[in-house]
């Protein structure tokens, strides 16, 4: 099972999918494309791997174990 974690006021919002469940994959890809269109940034990593193993991705990868969405940054 893959999981998207979208940083939010609740800590993070979770979107899960199963590779053997096409509908869940379609829904997750739709969410991915929506977030990307809103200039959010996606990183994929093996489950619980450290930041050094996280990799920036630009397209939905149904085989990713975990995708973390972060926000653009600016000077404060």
């Amino acid at each position, binding site marked *: 099972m893959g999981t998207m974690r979208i940083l*939010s006021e609740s*800590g993070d919002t979770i979107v899960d999918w199963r590779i053997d469940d096409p509908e869940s994959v379609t829904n997750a890809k739709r969410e991915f494309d929506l977030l990307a269109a809103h200039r959010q940034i996606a990183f994929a990593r093996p489950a619980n791997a450290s930041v050094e193993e*996280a990799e920036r991705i630009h397209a939905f990868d149904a085989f990713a174990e975990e995708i973390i969405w972060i926000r653009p940054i600016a000077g404060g």
Partner: protein
Amino acid sequence: MIDVPAYDVIEELEHGPLVRFLEGPLAGREVVLAARAMSESSAAVRSLTPEQRANELLLSLLTPQQRSEWASRQRFTVLTRFGTVELGEKFNIRYCPNAGGEYRLCVVPNRCTDLPGGDVWVNLLLWLQHDPRWFLTVANWRRCPHGEWNFGPVPGIRDA
């Protein structure tokens, strides 16, 4: 039968005691032990607060060294090709360039006020690890100890 690590009972709730584990992988975690689970010596993890969820995600991203730093002083260092950045103090991030000197930086995620603190560091950590140039380009900065704040980029980044 499953072995359960030592725990303290914090409060008796309707469905079982709320406990805090003292050791093992759940050390520090507060958990409700359901009545049935108690008899089988297993536990169900209580739902986490936003801050706990954010901290859990942050800890999962840190290296063992960074995790140790975070546990001892709520800060951790990130080595970049430009220098060392210390995350943990909002709006006042310590940066020591390889070329020498020391700065304080102010960098935040968009709409950062609606994120738990741990998520702010998750956001900045991932940026810093994967695109330190951009991080140091957008950062507002001041020289230590008492310089005035300036808009980015941090000195030395444009030509690096």
